[in-house]
């Protein structure tokens, strides 16, 4: 059974039935998976699965779920509970009467077998061999999954270290395929050659492989294998050049990448430095999350070997310790345990890292260099001799962070804090570390613990914790409790102002801002004061703040500030959250009125009065234009509040451009009726008269734009105003959308005639 033929037929049928999107996804999912674009696979599968279920297409459901598991388990090595459950569920689903005939239904065996291979390869080797064999018995070598299941069987043999048997199996399967391409199996065969100590044969095999049909991920597998062969053959430089970087690889490549790096571990080659530790920890984190029990210990072993090679004995011992702790979860740990034991013995012979401590703790900082691995050893030794000052504890935390061991930082800081409970820096560092990891309960406990010695800092941490969880009331209470007199606790007051503004208590925010400006030079607080006072319509405060900032506001004026400050652009969000930038007339330091009419199918902001954040968004663009000596763009600001909505709506106007003078008079008469017009078209390029029988030379300049009318003018009134004012100026223009809206059929028919006469395309 040829799966791909079935896929081709199915997608063709889907397209014929109008299910283009599903057809596209079905074609794309395997390709994205083999190219290592797993996010894309996930996204396509979610959509495709919903569509396939909607159609009740059981076979396609099997196909999509299988490929999603291929991406997750086979390539990303993720056998966490959800995926294991899905593999079992798919096996159940694919074996039901309605799905059994699906050409992909055999392959689901591989998904489940792979899960156990990922969890504990050698531990489940026997079960995997039996299940793969069973699957192979259901098919012949013409099935594409013959390759996959053979690959799975081969991998189980490799995990079981049955290399010779694997080699024989490979030859046998290849002969059944009569020389056809068996990419996965061939990779495994080459690896068996390596394991048997025959790198030249492995290299020959790797060189003969073509990854053309296996996508980018297959290409990377091949490159890592070739690099490993080259390294084993002693062709070091070529191996380095061939080996892809870890960040370009996927989980499926990690094992051979580590094996290769182990061959290239000599520090002078530049690959094995302390920096590798961060990658090791990142991988260990991923392996933990993906339930790779066996591989976790294996990576610990490789990391220990790399550490030994670069002389980092403490790091090696640490990995060996962690590796041994994880052995208990394995079904057959003997081989790995022996390897760890042997490495431990060698390490013991090498002894601990050499540390020459200075005579006093004050000199330790001077001993620290750029290598965090070495620094950590130095600081650990120093901590055994002295109680470390806070700066050195920070150094330990920084080293751990650089080495990817961030989870060890809170315990480290907690110990330091328990030994030095009066240190605010230590408290805040630990607190913010917990905050960044969203460990709120621990943060609360820490604040309680610090309450007595550092009450202000304890509340500061609590307030940040509450803010992170959007508890504005709680945060406000804590900040108010700790507020000192004006001039002191500026940080607390600033955060309080921020909280008050977020909570909408502008009166209180303004009070604090007024207090700040009493003892600070004119500056940011005045601008903030102007914004808040404008929102509250406290115009005297706005004028006072503007005067302090020497802004050209009429200080003697009263009531709302409604001046002409020129044009600007204001950026605001529509109801659906999307940002729109529109032109507005600035009416004061932080206020503007929108003067741009939007088309009828877009959110309308015309005549909206807004308060904006006075820090311009366009500083860079203005600077660029100034540098180029070009016309400066309008300043752009973010809208904070809508003070008064314009409530205008717009309708399209099309027709013949009457010339600038008439146009202006028409516009002005409309404006007198409270209706505004904005021209969208360019009379030089928008020409009318393209209808049949018209000569091109007769083309007339066209007019296209939108009128905006206020809420107190009804649609019927607007239609009447437009008709009357346009007729008065002899204008030939139409507003069919408006007429349709009010159901003015005869007027609409007349306008349609104009439309036809002038070749206006609606």
């Amino acid at each position, binding site marked *: 059974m040829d799966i791909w033929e079935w896929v081709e037929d199915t997608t063709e049928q889907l397209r014929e039935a109008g299910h283009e999107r599903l057809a596209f996804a079905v074609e794309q999912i395997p390709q994205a998976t083999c190219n290592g674009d797993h996010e894309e696979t996930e*996204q396509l599968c*979610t959509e495709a699965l919903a569509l396939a279920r909607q159609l009740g297409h059981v076979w396609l459901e099997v196909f999509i779920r299988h490929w999603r598991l291929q991406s997750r388990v086979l390539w990303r090595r993720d056998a966490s509970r959800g995926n294991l459950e899905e593999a079992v569920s798919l096996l*159940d689903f694919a074996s039901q009467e309605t799905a059994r005939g699906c050409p992909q239904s055999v392959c689901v065996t591989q998904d489940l*077998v792979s899960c156990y291979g990922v969890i504990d390869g050698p531990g489940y080797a026997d079960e995997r061999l039996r299940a793969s064999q069973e699957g192979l018995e259901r098919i012949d070598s013409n099935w594409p999954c013959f390759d996959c299941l053979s690959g799975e069987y081969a991998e189980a043999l490799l995990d079981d270290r049955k290399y010779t048997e694997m080699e024989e199996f490979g030859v046998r399967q290849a002969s059944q395929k009569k020389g056809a391409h068996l990419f996965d199996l061939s990779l495994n065969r080459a690896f068996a050659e390596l394991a048997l100590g025959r790198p030249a044969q492995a290299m020959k095999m790797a060189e003969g492989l073509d990854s053309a049909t296996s996508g980018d991920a297959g290409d990377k597998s091949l490159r890592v294998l070739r690099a490993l062969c080259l390294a084993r053959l002693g062709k070091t430089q070529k191996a*380095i050049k061939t080996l892809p970087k870890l960040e370009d690889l996927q989980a499926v490549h990690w094992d051979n990448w580590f094996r290769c790096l182990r061959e290239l571990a000599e520090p002078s080659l530049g690959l094995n430095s302390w920096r590798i530790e961060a990658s090791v920890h990142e991988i260990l984190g991923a392996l933990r999350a993906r339930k790779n029990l066996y591989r976790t210990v294996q990576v610990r072993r490789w990391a220990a070997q790399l550490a030994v090679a670069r002389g980092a004995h403490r790091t090696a011992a640490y990995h060996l310790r962690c590796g041994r702790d994880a052995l208990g979860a394995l079904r057959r740990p003997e081989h790995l345990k022996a390897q760890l034991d042997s490495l431990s013995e060698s390490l013991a012979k090498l002894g601990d890292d050499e540390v020459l401590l200075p005579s006093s703790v004050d000199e330790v900082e001077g001993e620290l260099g750029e290598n965090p691995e070495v620094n950590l050893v130095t600081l650990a030794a120093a901590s055994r001799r002295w109680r470390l000052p806070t700066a050195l504890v920070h150094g330990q935390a920084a080293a751990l962070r650089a080495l990817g061991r961030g989870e060890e930082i809170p315990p480290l800081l907690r110990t330091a804090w328990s030994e030095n409970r009066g240190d605010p820096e230590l408290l805040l560092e630990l607190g913010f570390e917990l905050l960044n990891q969203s460990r709120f309960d621990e943060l609360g406990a820490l604040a309680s613990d610090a309450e007595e010695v550092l009450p202000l800092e304890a509340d500061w941490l609590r307030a940040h914790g509450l803010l992170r969880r959007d508890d504005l009331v709680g945060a406000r209470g804590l900040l108010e409790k700790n507020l000192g007199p004006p001039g002191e606790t500026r940080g607390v007051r600033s955060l309080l102002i921020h909280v008050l503004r977020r909570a909408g208590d502008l009166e209180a925010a303004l009070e604090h801002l007024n207090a700040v400006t009493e003892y600070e030079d004119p500056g940011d607080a005045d601008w903030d004061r102007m914004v808040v006072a404008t929102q509250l319509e406290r115009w005297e405060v706005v004028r006072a703040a503007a005067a302090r900032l020497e802004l050209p506001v009429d200080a003697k004026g009263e009531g709302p500030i409604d001046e002409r400050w020129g044009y600007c652009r204001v950026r605001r969000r529509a109801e*659906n*959250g*999307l940002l729109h*930038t529109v032109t507005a007339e600035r009416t004061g330091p932080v206020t503007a009125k929108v003067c741009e009419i939007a088309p009828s199918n877009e959110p309308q902001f015309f005549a909206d009065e807004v308060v904006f954040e006075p820090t311009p968004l366009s500083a860079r663009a203005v600077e660029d234009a100034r540098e*180029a000596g070009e016309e400066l763009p309008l300043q752009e600001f973010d809208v904070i509040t809508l003070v008064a909505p314009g409530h205008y709506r717009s309708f399209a106007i099309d027709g013949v451009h009457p010339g600038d003078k008439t146009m202006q008079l028409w516009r002005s008469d409309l404006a007198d009726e409270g209706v505004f017009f904005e021209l969208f078209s360019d009379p030089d390029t928008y020409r009318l008269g393209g209808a049949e029988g018209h000569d091109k030379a007769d083309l007339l300049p066209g007019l296209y734009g939108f009128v905006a009318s206020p809420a107190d003018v009804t649609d019927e009134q607007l239609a009447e105003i437009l008709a009357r004012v346009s007729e008065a100026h002899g204008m030939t223009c139409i507003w069919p959308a408006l007429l349709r809206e009010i159901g003015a059929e005869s007027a609409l028919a007349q306008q349609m005639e104009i439309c036809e006469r002038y070749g206006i395309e609606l």
Partner: protein
Amino acid sequence: MRVLGEALYSTPHVVVRELVQNAHDSIERRRYETREAPVPEISVRCDSANGLLAIEDNGAGLTAEEVKGFLATVGTGHTRAIRDDGGGSSMIGYFGLGFLSAFAVAKRTEVWSCSYQTPDRACRFISRTGETYTLEEAEPREIGTTVTLHLKEDLLEIAKVEFLRDLLRHYCGLLRHPVALDGEVINDQPVPWRRDEAISPLRARKLSLEVAGRFERNFEPITAWTFASAPEHEIDVCGLFWIQDATTYASSDNRNVSVFVRGMLINDDERDLIPRWAGFIGAVVECDSLHPTASREALQRDSNFDQAAAFLREELIRSLATLAGREPESWRRAMRRHNEGLRGASLADPRLFDLLADELTVPTDAGEMTLPAVLSRTAGKIYLSQAERGGFEELLFRALKVPVVKGHLFAVLPFCQRYAESKRGALVALGDQGSDALLLRPAAEQPAARARLEALFGHEDRTIVPSHFEPSFLPFVLVRDRAIALKRSIEDDEADRRIGGAVLSLARRFTKGIDAGPASRLHVNMSCPAVQGLLAADGPRAGVGVKLMRPLIELLADPGAGSDIQDALEDFSAALQIVLAEDT
């Protein structure tokens, strides 16, 4: 030779590139070997009437011996020899195969050459297929080489001036030595990333757009910007990115990447140099460290390729992040055009996600909305449906005017998940057991009420869970336990008949870990007045109430889980008849 030449290249048109490249390398050779620097001249002439194409240079020229060695022997170009000698860093050729392309297009190939080594002697090489040739002494002229091709009948178009101009611009537009076609220099247009002289940011932007427009085949560029690696980068790369002005859908892949090595176009579809998520990006990449394949129509996938790709990926993310501040209008336009593609892209890199999370929209049953806009209407929850047609919960949320995100569409579910994890809001995937806790709050323990509910609605295979949830008019939610269903199906003897024993034992290994339990949980809404009314009622009224409410359990069960609606409606109808009979 002719066959080899035809097999090596995908199109005979590359002859123009190969011969111009040889001319270029010959000029470089002359500079390298003689330290002379004559003003470089590469001149292309064509005569379409007679099917003639000639490429002339004032490079090093070839001696008769060299002609025999280089032109007549496959794979032995002099460029490689110079490179192996440690020189020739600005030379383009590598394999010594370029000249083969001449035999693929010409019925007769003539090379006249006068070497700087023998300026008073010139030679002429003539061959039809490349397999045999004549080599004769010729009249010496200025030092240099002229290759003249007598084109085959079916390839005469190559000698047409318009066609040739396009070809030369395509392949040689960035070559540093001037290439003239019938006297007109075709590669003198400036490119903005080669900052030979300082230009203002605005000018650079305009020039970038102009150049992007030349390279972009299918779309207008919205905005374009240059990039260049710094000394600390592992590889020297420079060029131009642009965003295409076309609405893309989901995983559309319109990546358009032209790669130039030493000024010569290698491939105009080297899309893998930029990340897969960048399906709306075009780029021109100049990088002299990339290694072309033998045909020079693609790049070798080696560590240099990886380094260039890594640099471009980082640069793209960095520059997209700054584009928002640099050109906000263009950025917003790009976001509207590529909302779906960017949603996918943001999931591929956390930095992009941070940049885009609040700005991209997701489809909801109330139209496209950003997640902050969704959250502002749902009290901090992202309600998400995973089916094309949602279940009863979706209908209820619609009734409550709460937007429900359409999670089954491209990249929506993971985008919402990540938003809830890293920004704010709680994701409530409707119909998902994991989200039940967010929707269904357990009610305070009231043993009497529980006992009553057990008596009224209990079932041997169902747990009763007194709960509170919105909307309060809804009395029940029945949640079926999928894990239990799976356990029962896999552990049933019937499974042995349809699943192979070995793989079934692996499956059972998993289901053994699932605790046995009832197949479903009935959440009874203690906030529902009908439920409270039922608990307060007694005697026959309670009996009728139960009969009326019980059918609702099946009707309100999660869709697709085998609700027996027919039975439910029949029960309901029967109960209603009792009520109506009582009333009458």
